[in-house]
């Protein structure tokens, strides 16, 4: 379809908007003009992406009354250029989320110098952190997409990751069941899609088998009413930030360097090939730049001269419940109702997640799904919280909430992953639009990128060589709370720091906090310690342990207490000393 025809179609479908369209040889459609609001802007992008001949959409529409904040790249770039070249590498990876950490860890096996640059102060700070931790089987993704392929592959590869990197992976399995015969069609549809996508072990089962697989169904009386159930044994659960940390630590063990608080403000391109990045901290030169920048992947790609997609933020609110509210099911088990089916049909890409649990045993509700203009807006609203909480059963109570938060998914308009060597800028690899099921797909994404980069290296006469000293293994540090009393006793005798409980809700010891502070990718803030140790993650939310964690951090890192932050620069917990004590600091 021609650009003019596309513009005509879109203008007809959205009479309130005034649109222009431009289509390049690659099939990248750029839309400009104005529309009524943010919701419509997203709808137009999505509609346009479905038109024949459109590979992806660059959405440059403005929405009436909506101002979209932009990062001041010019200032950051000037700052970085003034600092000059601070590092030279073979590969720079932009972004330390699950994708960036996964790629770093895969590429670390080669004799390459690798630098990961990250805008935030820690790994997993974007979509990865605010994820429900489901390792999806791959039944819910449209067949034939890259997403479907990498989801199924990634799910399968997780056992190897979990074994080598020693993070908690629970293959709990998932079951969707219906208690009304006509709804069985929805399950059969999912079953056929799962089969097409190559999902391992998928089965349609009857009530009796369903109750065998999920004993909770017999207990709550729903079991005998089941007409049909879909069983997906490959569903898994992880703590997503722990996976990213495990990857980052293993990468660091193998020589990968992490540069935090370093927003990329420019990509250096010389003679049509990438030559490095300008971060706010200085220039890092490299032969390859892998763009795993999540919400900002489109902006980084544009900096490299390849404007091929637009990322829009889809916010999700998640609520975590007290461990005292025990999950009803051992598996992830959900009754599919008419309401659920209708919701899925109406919001094919955006319905969000339901009720599940974390590997530590907290019930997790959500995420919700809301399109928002500001990529940095991680605020929560009562409506989104209600949406997240509304997808559970009667056992879910607001009184059990211990924490709720939001994350933004980096969605493009094609709703598929974008993983390719840029056809515009050689050596620049896009890993874009990695949202759900990006966590499940991560091992396959990392492998795919490894293939792209090493093939290119081989073709250009500088083949990658495996390092003789590559160590794929990373061991988890002691977790006091999971040990038997005898093991705990032995651990304390070995090192008394494990005998002091700092976080009483989650039973985290001083020894574990010290271990984290001395780990290969050390935490720099109170929240970063929390993600590594769980200190402050429990029901009192750090009310008791935050002052103690802060004190340990100040001591260990040689900082003043007023310099310890909650979550990076500008978030200092303590501002100044009391009256009359200023002299002490």
């Amino acid at each position, binding site marked *: 379809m021609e650009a003019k025809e596309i513009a005509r179609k879109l203008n007809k479908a959205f009479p309130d908007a005034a649109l222009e369209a431009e289509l390049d040889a690659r099939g990248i459609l750029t839309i400009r003009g104005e529309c009524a609001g943010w919701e419509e802007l997203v709808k137009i992008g999505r509609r346009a992406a479905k038109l024949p001949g459109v590979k992806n959409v660059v959405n440059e529409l403005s929405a009436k009354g909506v101002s979209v904040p932009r990062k001041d790249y010019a200032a950051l770039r000037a700052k970085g250029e003034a600092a000059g070249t601070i590092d030279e590498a073979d590969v720079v990876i932009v972004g330390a989320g699950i994708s960036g950490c996964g790629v770093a860890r895969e590429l670390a096996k080669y004799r390459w110098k690798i630098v990961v640059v990250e805008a935030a102060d820690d790994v997993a700070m974007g979509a990865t952190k605010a994820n429900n931790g489901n390792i999806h089987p791959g039944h819910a993704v449209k067949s034939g997409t890259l997403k479907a392929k990498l989801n199924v592959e990634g799910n399968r590869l997780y056992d190897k990751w979990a074994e080598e990197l020693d993070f908690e992976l629970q293959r709990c399995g998932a079951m969707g069941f219906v208690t009304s015969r006509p709804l069985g069609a929805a399950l059969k549809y999912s079953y056929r899609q799962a089969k097409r996508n190559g999902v391992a072990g998928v089965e349609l089962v009857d009530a009796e088998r369903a109750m065998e697989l999920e004993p909770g169904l017999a207990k709550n009386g729903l079991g005998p009413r089941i007409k049909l159930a879909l069983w997906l044994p490959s569903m898994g659960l992880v703590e997503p930030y722990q996976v990213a940390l495990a990857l980052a630590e293993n990468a660091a063990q193998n020589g990968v360097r992490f540069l935090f608080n370093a927003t990329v403000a420019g990509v250096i391109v010389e003679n049509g090939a990438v030559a490095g990045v300008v971060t706010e901290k200085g220039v890092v030169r490299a032969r390859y730049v892998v763009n795993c920048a999540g919400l900002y992947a489109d902006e980084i790609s544009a900096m490299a001269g390849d404007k091929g997609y637009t990322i829009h933020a889809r916010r999700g609110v998640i609520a975590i419940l007290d461990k005292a509210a025990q999950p009803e099911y051992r598996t992830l088990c959900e009754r599919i109702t008419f309401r659920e089916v209708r919701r899925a049909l109406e919001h094919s890409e955006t319905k969000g997640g339901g009720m599940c649990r974390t590997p530590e045993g907290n019930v997790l509700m959500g995420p919700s799904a809301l399109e928002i203009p500001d990529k940095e807006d991680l605020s929560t609203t*009562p409506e989104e919280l209600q949406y997240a909480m509304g997808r559970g059963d009667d056992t879910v109570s607001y009184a059990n909430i211990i924490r709720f938060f939001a994350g933004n998914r980096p969605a493009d308009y094609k709703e598929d992953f974008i993983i390719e060597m840029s056809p515009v800028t050689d050596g620049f690899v896009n890993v874009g639009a990695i949202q759900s099921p990006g966590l499940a797909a991560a091992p396959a994404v990392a492998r795919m990128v490894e293939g792209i980069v090493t093939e290119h290296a081989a073709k250009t006469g500088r083949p990658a060589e495996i390092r003789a000293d590559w160590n794929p293994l990373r061991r988890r540090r002691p977790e006091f709370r999971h040990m038997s009393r005898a093991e705990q*006793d032995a651990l*304390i005798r070995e090192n008394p720091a494990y*005998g002091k*409980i700092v976080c009483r809700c989650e039973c985290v010891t001083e020894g574990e906090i010290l271990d984290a502070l001395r780990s290969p990718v050390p935490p720099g803030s109170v929240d970063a310690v929390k993600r590594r140790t769980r200190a402050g993650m429990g029901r009192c939310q750090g009310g008791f342990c935050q*002052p103690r964690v802060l004190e340990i951090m100040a001591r260990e890192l040689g900082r003043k207490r007023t310099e310890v932050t909650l979550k990076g620069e500008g978030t200092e917990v303590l501002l100044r*000393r009391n*009256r009359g004590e200023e002299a002490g600091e």
Partner: protein
Amino acid sequence: MKRVSVDVAVVGAGPAGLAAALEARRSGAKRVLLIERDAELGGILQQCIHDGFGLHRFGRRMSGNQYAQAFIDEVEASGVEVRLGTMALEVTGARVIYACSKSEGMLEIEAGAVILAMGCRERTANQVLICGDRPAGVLTAGAVQRYVNMEGYLPGSRAVILGSGDIGLIMARRMTLEGIEVKAVYEVMPAPGGLTRNIVQCLDEFNIPLHLSTTVTRVNGRKRVESVAVARVDKNLKPIPGTEETVGCDLLVLAVGLIPENELSRGAGVALDPRTKGPVLDDVFMTSVPGVFACGNVAVVFDLVDYVSQSGEIAARGAVDFIAGGLCRQPQYVPVEAGENVNFVVPQRLRHGCAGARLFLRVKKPLREAVLTCESGGRMLMQKSLRHLAPPEMIAFDLAGRIGDAPVAVSIREVTRE
């Protein structure tokens, strides 16, 4: 693993635990062990440097530290065995405590009787469903109190306080004295949550406004708190659209309630009362698990420390009776029913034939003049006139006389004058 055997083990050395350990010794228990996770005795009283403690017990105004010290001195002279830096990880229904410390590793403590005195924790911004951003500068009042009073640091310059419970009021004054500008105290309920004397001494004297039926709905600020949105609430405590206002501040202090810390109790199989969120107790403050007692704020959130100490002493005498075989292991109980205007009564049940008990209750709503009655099986056990009752102020009284086998109903009838 080191094994220890004691007569009475007390978990937690705040005011309840200190009083319990001391009273257990006084009542004749030989080996009394007091376990405390902190490096010092006193619990949360260590950070309570304001006065107003001990009016009932000592007849004078003391700071929290002074009040605690009075007990600490006695505990140290009493022969109570104290283990500091020792955290109880588990209490079993068979009265075995697992606790660990840096110096001793894991301890397995076998106790003739266990007294739970772990205190309470504060509700957080998340638990009261405040939406918006999640920046630095949102803290509970107790955490602010610790930072300011014990560590000597200030977490903000301009504060808004949500909740007019006593800790919130005390912190309003404390922060003001330290040069933090306290913009206002907001209270979702139509009446203040703290004691009247604290409203007067901590807010009125410093011209800090108190806004009732108003709550914080949203936090703004991506890195540090920049402002909060506040709104009036309707009868159902729901924000009224159109009443929202933005208040600039860099610190939001939450004083929105205390929850008894009953995680260890739950592990021991202790039955909890959904109303008090503490164990179901009898007249000697024994829980549903024989030989396991509870006192202080883990039993029920008290308003005055004097009552906390009293509850520790009641539990201790019960514990000593228990190990001496003086308590029936499977007692018959009569329930204590919360009647008209009564929110709850602790203890929740009494043993058949017990010779009275000390009862603690809270009223549902403010009452100017009222009559407290306790009835059982059509018999009036006691009757007492009371004035100026309010939900934040606990009412403690002794019920004398032998308890029969009929439920005891406690009611408070309002007296209206023509």
